[in-house]
């Protein structure tokens, strides 16, 4: 690690102030991505602004057909939340597949989404369910939020406050783990929200994306059969040590079919 300043603001305004004053400061959430990066000397922020003391960033609540989760909500809180289990069990299940217990005890939903790792799990959940990202200054739709590899629509000095999930009629996530990191080698989140079917894929490209061809087919018939035989192609797919682009293309098809079946078994609201 290089040397850095450490700040622990008590509210959002204070945090925004600190960021405005120091362009090289970085937000610290659960630290599960940021701290390993610092330890490996891959980043050298001038300061860390720890979000742990800011109550505006916490809390899980429902507002009509929306489930709202504060950015600083830890994975374990989502998994154990009776409200999430009742309204959006597919999300609780997806979160339970992130990392290991240590990571889930500290990592946050906001940190994960703001980080936009191409192999993260919750990016797929947010994109498939068409979540809204509420920041200190505006709302951003999931289709706009994930810009590129580790890049989001968040501006310099902007803080993600909460994420709002519309409650799906049915949804499921199927993850095939990278044998080393156990992030998603490929993960597919299928959701039907108010009749709108979305298939979000993570792990396969530089950023999470929607498989539009599958969505169109499913719109006609929501069944595994409907997407069988549809070729996703290998354009833009990651080809690396762990899996070839062809293999990832295959996983996208297989996992989509399995996610559809899982979503169909689970009743409305989500499986």
């Amino acid at each position, binding site marked *: 690690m290089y040397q850095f300043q450490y700040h622990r603001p008590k509210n959002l305004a204070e945090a925004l102030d600190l960021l405005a004053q120091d362009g090289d400061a970085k937000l610290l959430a659960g630290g599960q991505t940021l701290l390993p990066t610092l330890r490996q000397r891959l980043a050298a922020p001038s300061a860390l602004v720890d979000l742990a003391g800011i109550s505006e960033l916490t809390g899980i609540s429902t507002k009509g057909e929306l489930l709202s989760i504060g950015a600083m909500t830890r994975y374990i809180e989502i998994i154990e939340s009776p409200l999430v289990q009742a309204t959006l069990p597919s999300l609780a299940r997806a979160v339970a597949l992130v990392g290991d217990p240590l990571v889930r005890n500290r990592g946050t939903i906001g940190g994960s989404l703001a980080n936009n790792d191409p192999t993260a799990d919750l990016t797929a959940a947010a994109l498939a369910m068409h979540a809204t990202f509420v920041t200190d200054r505006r709302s951003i739709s999931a289709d706009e939020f994930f810009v590129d590899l580790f890049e989001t629509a968040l501006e310099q000095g902007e803080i993600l406050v909460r994420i709002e999930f519309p409650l799906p009629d049915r949804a499921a996530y199927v993850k095939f783990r990278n*044998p*080393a990191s156990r992030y998603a080698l490929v993960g597919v989140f299928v959701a039907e929200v108010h009749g709108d079917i979305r298939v979000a894929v993570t792990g396969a490209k530089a950023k999470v994306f929607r498989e539009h061809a599958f969505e169109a087919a499913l719109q006609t018939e929501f069944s595994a059969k409907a997407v069988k035989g549809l070729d996703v192609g290998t354009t833009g797919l990651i080809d690396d040590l*762990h*899996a070839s682009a062809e*293999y990832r293309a295959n996983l996208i098809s297989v996992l989509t079919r399995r996610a559809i079946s899982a979503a169909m078994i689970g009743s409305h609201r989500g499986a």
Partner: protein
Amino acid sequence: MKRYGIGQSVPRFEDSRLLRGRGRFQDDRNLPGQSYGVVLRSPHAHARIVSIDTAAARAAPGVLAVYTGEDYAADGLGMPKATLPRKRPDGSPMFAPQRPALVVDRVRYVGDPVAFVVADSLAEAKDAAELIAIDYEPRSAVTDTAAAASSGAAPVWDECPDNISNIVEKGNKSATEAAFARAVRTIKRRYVITRVHAQYMETRGALGVYDEGDERYTLYTDCQYPHRVRNMLCSTVFRIPESKMRVVSGDIGGAFGSKGWQYVEHRLVLWAARKLQRPVKWTCERSEAVLADEHGRDSVGEIELGLDGDNKFVGLRLHLIGNIGAYVGSDRNLLVPSMMIGTAVGVYDIPSAYALVTGVLSNTSPTAPYRGAGRPEAIYLIERLIDDTARELNVDPLELRRRNMIPANAMPYQNALGCYYDCGDFLANMDMALAAADYAGFPARREQSRARGMLRGISVANAIEQAASPAQSEFAEIRFDTSGSVQLLMGTKNQGQGHETTFKQILHERLGLDPGDVHFTDGDTDQVAFGMGTNGSRSTVVGGSAIYLAAEKIIEKGRRIAGHMLESAATDIEFAHGRFLVAGTDRAVSLKQVAAAAFVPARLPLGFDGGLYESATYAPSKDTYPNGCHVCEVEVDPETGDVAVVNYVIVDDVGTVINPLTLKGQIVGGIAQGLGQILMERVVYDDTGQLVTASFMDYAMPRADVFSHITVKSNPVPTKLNPLGAKGAGEAGCVGSLPSIMNAVMNALEPVGVRQLDMPATSDRVWKAIRSVAKENGK
């Protein structure tokens, strides 16, 4: 008495201490005034160093010194040299480039140490290391084993244009040629054995101290053989008597063969400590380990079996290319895989065999022994070939094995590659394993899997390995004190195997000592007179036998003291259950009482040499041959290529079982490492020679959830070669697990037509194999 004796499942005495965080591992050791060292390593696979500028680093805050290869050479420090008599193909002496502690003008692999920075704090040392400016001129590199041996490959050393360091031959070439000429059928295959890293929980470390008053060095380090580390450092590096150095190893969080003796950091911390007059500590970080450590395995084997008309094996030929890496820093780098390839005929009666092992240099970290060190390679090759032979000839693989197995009544058996199997009952192992695995019920299980869309496979692999080499003796000392309690000092070095427990059990069996009265010591050259350390499944066999012999001496001396105490002739004294008894009477004294008397001249015969401390240095006369049978069952998801091990059975013969519980730990751990290698683990260098699996983000380690239940059964046939009857157990699980898991995968893939696949059987490789066959068949 029985509670702690040989054969009892005694829970490990050391666990309470270790589990409560009271262990003392390498990084737990800190000394007043210590400084911190950081090794700057090569980012290139192969490059000429044009210049090194350390001025900025030396001027950085807290920096005590920045050393380069020139400084090391200028101080006249030496380096170890390989001593095994080896030749190149043309008969000239082998090419075995020594390794300096820091390179001077050429880096030869990613991770090659270039500079050593010492500072008041670790952070300052790291900051300074980044300020060292090195101008590299990259050169072409070769890392792939087969490519390094092929003509036109970039030479790693200019002095050795073909990259061939040496060759080793075993067996009888002309007899084997003749056997193949007579053979009715021959089957030939090529198998790749990947490169892996030991990935111990505790990464390496070294803490060097120099005492100017005594003119004496102390090295604290986690190594497998402190005495040999001392010997190497004193004789080849510092050129001082061994009395001028102490090497201490505390608890060790795993070693698996890879914590060897030639590591340059040992030299660097001692050298720097002397120059700076301060202790110097180096701790390998996790992200540094794959760069800094020796690797395991990495070979390509072409193996061929000849059979007669009755499917009896008549001959075996093997050409194995082993990847040595960039240096031959010591004999360690010559051991794999050639030393242990003699079991490549397995447990089968193959009258003639010939093996040629070509050791090639490459721009990679040197390879060295890693759990099995050539033995898993040998069994992998033969057991895979037998399954492939059975498939090609369309015969039952079990029947083919039975037909060719060495029967128990053929023991002892001299194999065609020079190994002398003294005892074992291979057929019984296999029958036991088949029963325990319900082999007969497999077709029904396969059918059930098929109904779920899954492919199921089963395999049987028979393992045998050469263990506990007679080339190395081992030391044990039993020291009584005046209270009658005991210090047991061993030349072996525990790395997590549970030595404290097994050795106390052996001592208990012989002397009836309460383990609570025994203090176990290993890993300190000032306390333990001698030792060769722990490697090659030898500690219980050789070290345990040394305890046995030292205990005999205690009994002999004790008998004379007891005779004096009981006013009887020593010849009338019997020793049993910790008591000396006058034969045929109830007059007795305990060993504790005898020990107390041993220190009081008035209680001893006149002129008697008092005290009670005895040692033994034992060397076995021959290698032992632990063996066993592994049955593995897997399920493969044809849609994703995912492999799941669903059942695993092993029947082992490690000779006398000292402790079934710790034995099971050794076996299961060995299987885990084999599973890791077959299903996921892999050190990968890319085309430019960059190491791409340096972290756990890319280096896949098996976790508990990828294992099935593992049934461990024993079929011990004790050897007569040592007083314990033990054969060695440390590597047994690993040796057979590589072929058993891979063969089970191949068996599962048989119905879809896959015939060729190398480890690791990762999901994408399995899927690709399935798909290419389907494509060929036009599906």
